[in-house]
């Protein structure tokens, strides 16, 4: 069961992130996703200091609020304040991330939260966390929460597919026929920050970004249609998670880093091979 829970958790994170990441990449908001995954840190830490639990309702609430507030502030800074958009992103997320790190190093000194875990996650620890019994089966708490979120996330994306895709491909058309681009953007970013919160304990705040963008980048190479796009991204990330997990045991390194490296190598290989083959034809 040990292997199973880790792989299962990794796959859940992968599915979540790759679905959301697909739209982030299509909407050209990949770096915003990166920023968001860093920005939720203070929310996680403050909630942790209050409840002493890594994932609670309070964490979810705080992080979602802070994530959306960060996006809102970035928008205000760039649209009204005269900041460059990218500069506003760069300043906001490093600011919030710094506050998170400062809180961790000052207040949570004795608590069960450390910087390395925040950055790289601790997925290997998942099977050892306290479990919940569901139909006689002991499910690690975090995996359980993550699967609920995954289900909710997939349902939202399934029913909102039209809105998400039309606002990604043709925002102008979307606003002419009365679909609010802002609403779908914020929904996507809200889901992304929630996904970060739920994945944070297992993959960490920085590694989430690779789960978000690499599968979507891979799918971007292979297809032009939205449904295959998402399916390819999902399958790719799940397969890479499994390969990465076993590879990480071979060389005894961080599981998540290994997973995203596997993803990255496959992606780069595809990019560089593809062009060369077409060149040779020409």
């Amino acid at each position, binding site marked *: 069961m040990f292997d199973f829970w880790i792989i299962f958790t990794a796959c859940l994170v992968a599915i979540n992130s790759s679905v959301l990441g697909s739209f982030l990449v299509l909407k050209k908001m990949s770096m915003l996703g990166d920023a968001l995954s860093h920005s939720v840190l203070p929310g996680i830490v403050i909630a942790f200091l209050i409840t002493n639990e890594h994932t609670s309702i309070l964490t979810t609430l705080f992080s979602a609020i802070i994530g959306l507030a960060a996006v809102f502030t970035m928008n205000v800074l760039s649209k009204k304040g005269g900041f460059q958009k990218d500069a506003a992103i760069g300043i906001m997320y*490093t600011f919030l*991330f710094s506050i998170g790190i400062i809180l961790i*190093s000052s207040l949570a000194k004795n608590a069960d939260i450390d910087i390395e875990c925040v950055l790289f996650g601790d997925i290997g620890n998942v099977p050892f966390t306290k479990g919940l019994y569901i139909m006689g089966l002991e499910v690690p708490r975090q995996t359980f929460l993550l699967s609920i979120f995954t289900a909710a996330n997939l349902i939202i994306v399934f029913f909102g597919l039209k809105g998400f895709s039309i606002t990604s491909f043709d925002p102008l058309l979307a606003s002419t026929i009365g679909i609010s681009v802002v609403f779908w953007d914020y929904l996507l970013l809200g889901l992304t920050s929630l996904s970060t919160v739920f994945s944070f304990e297992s993959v960490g705040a920085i590694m989430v970004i690779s789960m978000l963008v690499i599968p979507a980048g891979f799918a971007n190479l292979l297809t032009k249609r939205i449904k295959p796009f998402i399916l390819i991204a999902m399958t790719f990330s799940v397969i890479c998670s499994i390969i990465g997990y076993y590879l990480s045991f071979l060389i005894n390194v*961080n599981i998540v*880093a290994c997973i995203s*490296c596997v993803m*990255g190598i496959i992606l780069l290989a595809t990019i560089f091979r593809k*062009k060369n083959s077409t060149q040779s034809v020409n």
Partner: protein
Amino acid sequence: MNFWEQLIYFFSFTDANVSNVLIGTLLLGIASGMVGTLVVLSKKTLIIDAISHSMLPGICIGFMLSGVKNPVYLMLGGMSSATVAVYLIAEISQRSKIKVDAAIAITLSILFSFGVIMLNVVQNSGNPNQSGLNDFLFGKAASMLRKDLYMFGGLCLIIFICLPVFFRHFKISLFDPIFAQSIGIKKYFIQSIISFLIIVTAAAGVQTVGIILISAMIIAPASAALFWTNNFRLTMIYAGIVGAGCSIVGVFISFLLPEMPTGPWIVVMLASVSILSVLFSPSGLLVKQIQIRKNKKSILRENVLKTVYKLKEKIKGKKKGISTEEVSNYRPTAIRKVRSALKHLKRKGLVIKGGDYWTLTENGVQEAERIVRVHRLWELYLQKYMHLPSNYVHNSAESIEHIVTPEIEQALAEVMGKPELDPHNQKIPYGK
């Protein structure tokens, strides 16, 4: 030691270690602020993230190859892997249809996770020197030694030489890229130099701020400085000052509280300065909002005054004056706003209140006539010279009447020969 003694001790240069840190941080702050100006103005801020994160694998490999924590090897390693990142981003976005921002995020995450793997490998190797590699993530300025400072100074020297040498090139290509190309400055060349400077700054900043937060160190000072000046050279100087000041405060805090990482404090200081600049600088949000409000209020007052005048024109002396409600109904405006506008006009001596009715004073009539005159002249002008039909001219005149200066008004009147009637056959008032 209490706070003040610590402060004096910190800045007194008596302790060699402390003065190493202080000099190093000062240099870094100035260098990163100046380089940041280039990066922000060339709108290349996203790439900094990728560059800084991708230094991790290089640093680890540099350590693995040399086996010691010699800053020269580490930084050379970091700089080469950062160069790989710049190359990868360009290649990915050229070879595939992946957009630049996604290419940046992809490169960043691949190289960073590769770095984490390398970090694990180093940690597993059992090399006793490896402790402290972690400090590169968030920086630990306190660990800066004399030999670090030499390397550090070298990196900053590169920056301080490059900037003045290529100053003109930067200026021209940033502000007028087409002109720059026409006089033979290659876009590719300038971008390569900027990327190179970012890499050097990131390498220099790793020890103080750490690789995750160095991007703020580069972006924030320049972004803040741009709110205070439009001059390229001044922006660089201000950015340097902001960078240096904030980093010293950050270093001082982590000197007081040794368990604190330096980087996050520096970033918090920098972000605060930027946010304060956005709000309170002369071109900032608050000043702008105040200006907008002022304008809105003065437009409202002029409109109210005009309405009183027009209503009076209509009743032709049958009534004593105009009530507040009438004004608010004639020109749909909240009665509260109308009331406050009328009060303000009264204080300026433009209207007087008799009972429940408002009437214009001598000055009020003059001012109202001026506004109506400008409005009607403009309508006529649009009709005569722009050949707009008379039912299209009102809205434009409605906004322009608050802006036209007496000189323009005079010119308008002269060019049309002091006309009597506007397109709607209303009299244009010229006063006495």
